C-alpha cells in the first residue's frame, strides 16, 4: 500500500503544480478585478507633496499600485449580447462540426471493421497520417486550396473554359469568376471537421473492432438481417465509442481559436478568439479567466448531458422489450 502511494507521488505533484494550481489561479483571476488603490494627497513638513495610501504607507510618487478586489462584474459583462452571441456561435459551430464528424466518421469506422475489409490497420494509419503534420500547415494548405486565387477556383475556371454549358449554368445562377469559399462560418467548420475527424473515427473504430464476431453471428442465427443486426447489436455496442468521439471533437472545437482566425479570416470570431484576445492584445486577464470559466461550465454541462444519455440508453434498453 505504502509503495503504491509512493508510486503515485510524481503524478500527484504534477497534477497539483500543473492542473490544480493553474485552475485555482484562473478561478482567482475570474472572480477578481484590479482597481487602483485609494490614496489621499498630503503635504509633508518640508512643503513637498506626498501620497498616503490606504494601508498607511506614504510615498512621493503618484500611486500606480493596483489591488485585486473580489467582484462579479466580469460575469455581468459576459452576458452582454456581444459575448453571448459569440458563445452561441461557438456552440453552433462546435455542434455542427461534431455532427458532421459523426456522420462521416461512423461509416468509415464501420467499413474499416468490416469482415471482408483488407488491411484495416493500414487504412487507419492513412487516416491518422495527416495528423502527424503540423496543425497550422494543414490549415494553411486548406486555405491555399480554397482562397480566391486558389487551386479550387482555378480548377473551376478551367472547367468553365472547357465546358461552355457549365459556365452558362454557373453564370445563370449568378456565380462570379471567383467563388468565395474562405472567411465564413462554413470554411471554419470545414477546417474543424478536417482537423478533428480522426478523433471521431478512432474511438468508434476501436469499439466496433472489439465486438465479438460471434455476437453478430448469434444475431443472424436468431433471425436478424444485417440491418437489424446493426441496429440491435453493433449500434448499442458502439455507443460508448460514439460518446467518446463526440467528446474528443466537441471539446477542442468549442475552445479553438486558430482555425477560426485562419479559415474565418477574423470574420467569424469564436469565444476562443475572445479569450485569447483577453490574454493577448487586451491584456484583461480577469475577463479572459472568467470567460474560460464560462466555457468550462458549458463543456462540463455538455459532458454531463452526454453521460446522462449514456445512462438513459441503458435504462431504455432495459425497458424497451418489456
Amino acid at each position, binding site marked *: 500500500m505504502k509503495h503504491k502511494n509512493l508510486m503515485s507521488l510524481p503524478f500527484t505533484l504534477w497534477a497539483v503544480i500543473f492542473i490544480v494550481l493553474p485552475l485555482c489561479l484562473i478561478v482567482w483571476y475570474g472572480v477578481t478585478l484590479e482597481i487602483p488603490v485609494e490614496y489621499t494627497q498630503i503635504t509633508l513638513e518640508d512643503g513637498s507633496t506626498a501620497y498616503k495610501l490606504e494601508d498607511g504607507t506614504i510615498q512621493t510618487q503618484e500611486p500606480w499600485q493596483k489591488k485585486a478586489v473580489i467582484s462579479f462584474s466580469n460575469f455581468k459583462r459576459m452576458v452582454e449580447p456581444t459575448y453571448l452571441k459569440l458563445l452561441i456561435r461557438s456552440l453552433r459551430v462546435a455542434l455542427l462540426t461534431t455532427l458532421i464528424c459523426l456522420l462521416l466518421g461512423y461509416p468509415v469506422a464501420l467499413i474499416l471493421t468490416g469482415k471482408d475489409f483488407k488491411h484495416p490497420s493500414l487504412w487507419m494509419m492513412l487516416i491518422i497520417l495527416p495528423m502527424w503534420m503540423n496543425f497550422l500547415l494543414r490549415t494553411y494548405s486548406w486555405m491555399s486550396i480554397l482562397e480566391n486565387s486558389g487551386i479550387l477556383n482555378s480548377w473551376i475556371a478551367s472547367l468553365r473554359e472547357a465546358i461552355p454549358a457549365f459556365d452558362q449554368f454557373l453564370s445563370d445562377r449568378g456565380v462570379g469568376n471567383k467563388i468565395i469559399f474562405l472567411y465564413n462560418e462554413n470554411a471554419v467548420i470545414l477546417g474543424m471537421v478536417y482537423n478533428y475527424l480522426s478523433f471521431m473515427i478512432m474511438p468508434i473504430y476501436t469499439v466496433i473492432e472489439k465486438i*465479438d464476431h*460471434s*455476437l453478430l*453471428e*448469434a*444475431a*443472424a*442465427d*436468431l*433471425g*436478424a*438481417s444485417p440491418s*437489424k*443486426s446493426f441496429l*440491435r*447489436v453493433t449500434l*448499442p*455496442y458502439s455507443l460508448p465509442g460514439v460518446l467518446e468521439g463526440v467528446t474528443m471533437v466537441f471539446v477542442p472545437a468549442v475552445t479553438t481559436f486558430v482555425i477560426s482566425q485562419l479559415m474565418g479570416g477574423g470574420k467569424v470570431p469564436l469565444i476562443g478568439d475572445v479569450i485569447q484576445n483577453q490574454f493577448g492584445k487586451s491584456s484583461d486577464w480577469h475577463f479572459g479567466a472568467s470567460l474560460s470559466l464560462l466555457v468550462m461550465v458549458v463543456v462540463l454541462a455538455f459532458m454531463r448531458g452526454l453521460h446522462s444519455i449514456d445512462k438513459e440508453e*441503458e435504462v431504455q*434498453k*432495459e425497458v*424497451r*422489450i*418489456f
Partner: protein
Amino acid sequence: MDNNIILSIRNVKVVFEDGFTALGGVSIDIGQNEFVTLLGPSGCGKTTLLRCIGGFEKPTSGEILYKGENIIPLPPYKRNINTVFQRYALFPHMNVAQNVAFGPSLRREDKKQISARVSEMLELVGLAGFEKRRISSLSGGQQQRVAIARALINSPDVLLLDEPLGALDLKLRREMQLELKRIQRESGITFIFVTHDQEEALTMSDRVAVMRAGEILQLGTPVDIYNEPESAFVADFIGASNILPSTMVRDHLVHFLGTDFPCADSGFGENNPVDVVLRPEDVKLKPESDPANGVVGVVESLLFKGVHYEMKVRTGADALLVHSTHARQVGTRVKMTVAPEDIQVMRKSDYSPDVRARKGEGGAQ
C-alpha cells in the same frame, strides 16, 4: 431411427482460402427428432460442418437439403435452424429476458405473448424467475441455459450445439448432459451436437458420427460405435482399447500375438493384414496353466481405478491394457483369453498402429 429425414447433407466439401480442406465430401442424413453427435478431435471438421448447416460457412461444393430444399444459398437469418454457440455469444448489454426474447422481438410478435414465452422457456431450462438478471451476473452453467432458451424460443426444427458444455466443470457437465437430453425429448427438436468428448457423445446421442480430417469415418448408434468400431482410429478415439496388427487367416479365424483366435467376423479374405481391437474389459486373465486358447504374459503394472483395476500385461513386444475387478500382482504370469464375439476385426487404415509406427508417429500404447 426415424425415416422422416429433415436434413440431408450430400457430399459437402469445404476448402478454405489457404487451400486447407476442412471437409472432404461429407454425407449424412438426419432424421426428425434425432439426437446426432459429430464427434472428433479438434480440427476434424465437425465445427465447420455445423457452421455449414447454420449458414455461417459456405461449402465449396455439395448440397444441404432441409426438408428437401437446398438451403446453401440462404443466409443464416433465413434458416429455421438455431445455434447454441461454443462460448454462448449472449448479448451482454441485455438482460436474460431480452436475450431470450431477441428472436421473437425481431419478428415483432405481441409483447405480452413474448413475455409469456420467455418465462416458459426459462422454466424449461430451469431458470424461472431469472428474467431481469444481467448476463454478467450468471454462472457459466446458467449462461449455457440462457443460450439454449434463446435458441429454443424460436421453435427451430433443428438445433445446432457447438461444444456447448466445453466450458463447464465435470459435475455441471454431467448435469447438463441429462438436462439437454430431457429438453430434446420434451421439445421434439432435432439436435446436432458437436463434441470431442467421446463419453458425452455416447451418453446423449441416438447416433454418433465419428469424424477425422474432414471425413465421417463411422456413423452409428453409440453401442455400435463402441462395440464394433470399423477402424483403428474410431476404436482408439472412442475409448481405451488395445489395437493390434493382425492377419485374417480365413473367415472366423484371426492371428495376433503369435496365436490363432477364433472370431465372429468374416469377409476380410484369406491371409490379409487387418487390425484387431480388444476392449480392456473383454480380455480375461486366467492362471498360466489354464488349458484355454490364449497368450501368456506378465503383469507389468497395476492401478486401482475405483470400479476396476487397470493392468498392463506384457507379452513379447506388446503390452495389453486389461480391466478386471480382480487384481493380479505385478510380476504374475497370466494367460490372456478373449471370447470370439469380443474380437473386433477392422480393415487396415493409415491410423493402424503398425502403419503409424512405420511413419514414426508411434503406435497406440
